[in-house]
């Protein structure tokens, strides 16, 4: 079976005491550490339509076909022919297995209304029938589906109870690995408490349908002598049967590739330290119109360019829309579709349930065998079911892809608060956030690398520009005015250039001014010095002249006295 490739991944949780009989349902074999307890009895409880019968049949078919263990099916629900019809579409050839003597299908119809009880009885014919069938086929596996219908059939449930208890021991004495199915009860695991007789393994199947979307879960309630996953595991019924994906156990065992693949955007590769790791999961989240799909398109284009196959799962748009939109940014994806490298699957989640969706993905992965898968618009599931279910669903998808080593880019539409994207971000290895920044009447896109496991990545933000020749990353302006992108960035850059020019001008002006001022002051200084010199000269001249005058005056008086005959030189006052 195609899903058995999961089996080798987990060898954990195997208790040494118990031998296991593999169910062939890889996920179930993982969580039980290899299968059902060999030679013991397992109870599978669930409501109608939960998948009990199918689980039992897969166990029998896998045993007969793959593990060399023939089986016996004893059904109380449907005719043997009807059972064969029901599972033929899953590829189970019950008729062929019966012809080959590897399987016996026996059916008993129980109609309580037709039976009158009159005294003591036992169910020995049931034992005889089983014994005969086991001997005839050499059966190692037995499935009884759904044996609880015997309650109420003969009017004496105490006898039925005792007989079923005896049957449980009888089966174990025969050394066959047996499954009994039981209807889910309101207050107990099964309606009639069959779990009392089953000491080794009890599995409960649950099938919830909400808003026409079904979700199935499996839980191992009891598994004696060994550790087992106690979680509820989502499962679905694919075209090949039961598919159970035990998320928690798988996560531990992914191979981790060291090889990197280009995102198709050179600068993004650079930001991520050389591309994304092969087999890793990239989550791209952002509000509407931030360019999430374009990132996916680049990754797909790059992969196809290398000759690899790509599966593109579209949850929102049609294939034609995407091809057209991507052509507008210069990516010709149609050539890859034509070349058979790119497969686009438009899968509106509203047209089928989450479970069916997963099943179809599994089939497509088998068919396309891609190295890269783009899940475009995963958060659109959120309209269809509860967030918890969607998260679980997306987790299963990512798991599935990761197990197969497929590089995955998932885009998720986020409503404003980009950090709350379905809480699946923890499952992604790389988380890119695209954000619209609105300013000056336009929107621009920014790209952040929020995380990238195992990679030294840039923590810088880049502007994400969609051109007619693809997406480009451009440095954003980060300055005093905050982060700017788009024309604001350009305007800011221009303004900055201008400011620089202006500043240069200013300085020159100032320099000239100062020069001028200095020369003025120098001239002034020279003039002042001249003045000082002139005044000093003047001062000297005054002194000289004073001395000359005094000498002149004395000479004049002497001459004048001589002329008046003065016998003595009289003083000025005495003469008057």
């Amino acid at each position, binding site marked *: 079976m195609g899903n058995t490739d999961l089996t080798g991944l987990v060898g954990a949780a195997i208790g040494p005491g118990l031998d296991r009989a593999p169910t062939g349902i890889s996920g179930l074999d993982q969580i039980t550490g290899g299968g059902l307890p060999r030679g013991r009895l397992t109870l599978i409880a669930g409501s109608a339509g939960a998948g009990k019968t199918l689980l039992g049949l897969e166990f029998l078919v896998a045993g007969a076909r793959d593990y060399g263990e023939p089986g016996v099916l004893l059904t109380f629900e449907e005719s043997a022919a009807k059972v064969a019809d029901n599972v033929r579409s899953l590829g189970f050839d019950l008729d062929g297995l019966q012809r080959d003597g590897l399987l016996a299908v026996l059916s008993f119809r129980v109609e309580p209304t037709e039976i009158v009880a009159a005294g003591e*009885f*036992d169910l020995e014919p049931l034992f005889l029938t089983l014994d005969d069938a086991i001997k005839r086929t050499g059966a190692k596996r037995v499935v009884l589906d759904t044996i609880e219908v015997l309650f109420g059939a003969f009017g004496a449930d105490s006898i039925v109870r005792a007989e079923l208890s005896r049957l449980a021991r009888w089966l174990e004495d025969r050394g066959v690995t047996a499954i009994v199915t039981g209807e889910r009860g309101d207050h107990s695991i099964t309606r009639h408490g069959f779990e009392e007789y089953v000491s080794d393994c009890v599995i409960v199947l649950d099938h919830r349908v909400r808003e026409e979307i079904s979700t199935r879960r499996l839980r191992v309630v009891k598994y004696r002598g060994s550790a087992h996953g106690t979680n509820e595991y989502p499962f679905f019924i694919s075209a090949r049967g039961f598919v159970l994906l035990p998320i928690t156990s798988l996560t531990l065992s992914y191979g981790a590739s060291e090889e990197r693949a280009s995102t198709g955007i050179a600068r993004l590769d650079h930001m991520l330290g050389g591309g994304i790791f092969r087999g890793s999961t990239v989550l791209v989240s952002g509000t509407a119109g931030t360019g999430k799909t374009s990132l996916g398109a680049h990754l797909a284009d790059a992969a196809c360019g290398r000759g690899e196959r790509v599966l593109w799962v579209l949850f929102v748009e049609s294939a034609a829309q995407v091809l057209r939109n991507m052509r507008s940014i210069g990516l010709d994806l149609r050539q890859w579709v034509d070349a058979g490298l790119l497969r686009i699957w438009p899968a509106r989640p509203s047209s089928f349930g989450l479970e069916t969706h997963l099943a179809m993905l599994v089939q497509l992965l088998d068919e396309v065998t891609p190295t890269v898968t783009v899940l475009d618009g995963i958060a659109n599931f959120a309209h269809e079911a509860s967030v918890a279910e969607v998260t679980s669903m997306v987790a299963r998808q990512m798991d599935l892809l990761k197990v197969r080593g497929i590089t995955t880019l998932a885009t998720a539409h986020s409503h404003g608060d980009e950090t709350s994207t379905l809480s699946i971000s923890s499952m992604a290895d790389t988380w890119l956030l695209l954000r619209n920044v609105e300013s000056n009447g336009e929107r621009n896109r920014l790209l952040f690398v929020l995380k990238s496991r195992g990679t030294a990545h840039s923590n810088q933000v880049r502007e994400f520009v969609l051109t007619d020749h693809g997406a480009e990353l451009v440095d954003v302006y980060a300055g005093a005015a905050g982060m700017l992108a788009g024309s604001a960035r350009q305007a800011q850059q221009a303004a900055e250039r201008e400011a620089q020019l202006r500043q240069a001008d200013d300085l020159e002006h100032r320099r000239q001014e100062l020069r001028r001022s200095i020369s003025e002051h120098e001239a002034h200084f020279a003039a002042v010095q001249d003045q000082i010199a002139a005044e000093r000269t003047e001062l000297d001249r005054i002194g000289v002249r004073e001395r000359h005058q005094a000498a002149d005056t004395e000479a004049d008086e002497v001459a004048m006295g001589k002329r008046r005959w003065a016998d003595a030189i009289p003083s000025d006052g005495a003469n008057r």
Partner: protein
Amino acid sequence: MTQPHATEGAPGADAGAGETWELCLYVTGRSPKCLRATENLRRVCEEHLAGRYRIEVVDLLENPRLAADDQILAVPTVIRKLPQPIRTIVGDLSDTDRVLVGLQLRPRRSAAK
């Protein structure tokens, strides 16, 4: 419509009045339950159907596949093959009233308890 249908009219007894009853008793060997059932069945038939009944005893130990073929899960089981319709009674037939009801040899009201 106005008259209740006479279910107590012992239709079984009436229906089988003229013909031979064909009964099949399934057993597994000679277990005490099976021996008791054989004895009880013969006694009831002698009392109510003297001279016009036939009992076939099938031992499933001898042919286990008949269990699935004839849809027999419990033993002892009596199948009334004739007269039609087919009736099934399970048990060692120690509860005679229930046997009579099962074979429709007596009005149902006696078995109401």
